[in-house]
């Protein structure tokens, strides 16, 4: 039985919205619930994929777990330590074991530092090492991420997208990461390079036993790399389960819509067994309008088909994640068959 490396319980992250100076005078504040009560766990050597549309809170979850931004409430347990409110000094040694691969390739690397120094900085942040040891470790990292030695004296601006991504990954390994939040690690890359990076991440997982929280909107890549997948909608996880179950037999209407969009884009015939979902009015969710009950109801075709049942929009009965067996959970009053 593998150990649980990360457990998140009822995590909330609300951002305060500044609505002009007058709002402070009126003593009224508005909050944007970017992450609104999310619970999940991640085992060692495992990848949890996190999918959802932009603005649903995927990246905020990643940042909050790593304590790059404080949680509003809830509990984050990393490797047996409750880090939710751990003082920075105590957290520091744990930080070396949890790292992030940032979405923005260019913002993640100091443009004035050469690859050699970027790696050295990461290697020596948590470990005091002599020059010879640093050089040995640098060579080892280059080999692990499959980067040429000749690139050591390059500046980030001289590297291609794939190479920058590799340097970023090498830096997370350099500090000794065991758990990595990979935030859209392939979205800025071309398909041929994307394949290299996906293969690399999976190789590293096999060799080093890493755990990933893999955030992406590319459903195929997510299904490929993840053991489990969580589907997010507006700050909540609406469904979580084994990757292939979620992709092939999602029970939440939103999950189905996400994957049928992929099929539609391919132009393939929608499968006869599961007709493509017809969609309600798509719009941007308005955080300022209070939600009652299920957040997805305004867009939900099942809600319409069922004749707008009151249970879906009743504030007292917001759907909770229910266990369907086999690690499959769904938050819906009328899960699809």
């Amino acid at each position, binding site marked *: 039985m593998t150990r649980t490396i990360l457990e998140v319980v009822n995590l909330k992250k609300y951002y305060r919205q500044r609505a002009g100076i007058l709002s402070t005078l009126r003593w009224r504040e508005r909050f944007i619930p970017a992450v609104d009560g999310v619970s999940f766990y991640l085992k060692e050597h495992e990848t949890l994929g996190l999918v959802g549309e932009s603005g649903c809170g995927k990246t905020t979850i990643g940042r909050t777990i790593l304590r790059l931004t404080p949680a509003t409430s809830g509990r984050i347990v990393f490797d047996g330590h409750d880090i939710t409110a751990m003082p920075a000094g105590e957290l520091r040694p744990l930080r070396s074991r949890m790292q992030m691969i940032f979405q923005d390739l260019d913002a993640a690397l100091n443009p004035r530092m050469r690859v050699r120094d970027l790696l050295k900085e990461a290697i020596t942040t948590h470990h005091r090492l002599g020059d010879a040891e640093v050089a040995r470790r640098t060579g080892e990292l280059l080999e692990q991420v499959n980067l040429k030695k000749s690139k050591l004296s390059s500046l980030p601006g001289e590297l291609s997208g794939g190479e920058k991504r590799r340097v970023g990954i090498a830096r997370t390994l350099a500090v000794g990461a065991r758990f990595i939040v990979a935030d859209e690690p392939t979205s800025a890359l071309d398909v*041929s390079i994307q394949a290299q990076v996906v293969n690399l991440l999976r190789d590293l997982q096999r060799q080093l036993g890493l755990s990933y929280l893999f955030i992406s909107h590319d459903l195929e890549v997510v299904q490929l790399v993840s053991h489990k997948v969580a589907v997010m909608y507006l700050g909540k996880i609406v469904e979580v389960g084994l990757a292939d179950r979620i992709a092939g037999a999602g029970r939440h209407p939103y999950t189905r819509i996400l994957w049928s969009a992929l099929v539609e884009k391919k132009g393939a015939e929608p499968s006869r067994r599961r007709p493509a979902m017809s969609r309600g*009015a798509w719009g941007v969710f308005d955080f300022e309008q209070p939600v009652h009950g299920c957040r997805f109801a305004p867009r939900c075709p099942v809600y319409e088909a069922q004749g707008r049942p009151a249970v879906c929009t009743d504030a007292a009965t917001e759907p909770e994640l229910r266990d369907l067996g086999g690690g499959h959970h769904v938050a819906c009053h009328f899960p699809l068959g």
Partner: protein
Amino acid sequence: MGAPLLEIESLRTYFYSRSKRAFIRAVDGVTLALARGETLGVVGESGSGKSVTALSITGLIGAGPGVIGGTIAFHADGGEQNLLADLERYVDRKEVDGRIVEVSKDEAGWRRKVERIMAPLRGKAISVIFQNPKAALNPFVRVGEQITEVIRLHTPTKGARAAREQALDWLRRVKIDSPRLRFDNYPYGLSGGMCQRAVIAMALASEPALLIADEPTTGLDATIQSEIVGLLAELKAEIGIATLLISHDIRVISRLADNVAVMYGGSVMEHGPAADVLAARFAPKHPYTTALLASIPSEQNVRDKGYLTVIEGEVPDAVDLPRGCRFYARCNRVTDGVRDRCAQREPALQEIAPGHRIRCWLYAE
């Protein structure tokens, strides 16, 4: 296929890198043709010259030296017009064994001339849909009014009321919900997908002969992407306007395009019917096309959790393009019979079947 609408011949668009003191050969001898009613998909990785080709057609290249050679023949309103006509005389090229080493260009004269040619065409005969829909709309003008303006400027409908009605009709045709309401919205009130619909309406409202869609779905959410692709497919069936569709997303291209051009390192490597070029099993194919198709996660890949097929190496540097085939360094189909030629000389686009051309020594006669 209908009569030709656009014929690009050996288009070259270079930029100058001051730090490297060398030319960036963004587009380096592109030859393409587009017929009336045809959708030509242009695929390629970033830096392959797709967008620069589009900008060259529309005369929107800002940085120098920009377009430095070739012809772009545009057949509209019964006549033929070379969009690069007489521009040659503003450029002086110095070549050393086939390579341009020095370009001097009368930038101001060139600019003036381009504007004279393009001003009557841009937005009227040639419309463009850019990648970022929010940036394409004026944030201070109501969406409906922006479309009305296009109609009054570029179509025979000049009356304010009639143009408004027509604009509203376009909003309906691109399936914006409650179009009457949206007409008076400012762009910030619309979601990304709705903005893109408005931009599409605006591009089509001038009833152009040629539509250039540069990554029309990139940056939108997956659910929205499939809707926009669906809309473009419907509009294609309904209006059948000649479209140059640029995307790095092969799935989008395969859904919409009749013909496909595969670009690599500023050059067209393969050009032919979409069904043949993008079909997994069609045999004659440029090695790059084969590798590109293989690197997309297939259903088999995803199910088996297998490794993805990788194209080893990196996209060539546009400053230092190889002298032989641009794909030679990454090609996995080089045979001993062609190796020397691959390394030394660039192959020509060779017709291997009617309308299907491949730039590869393996298929050379």
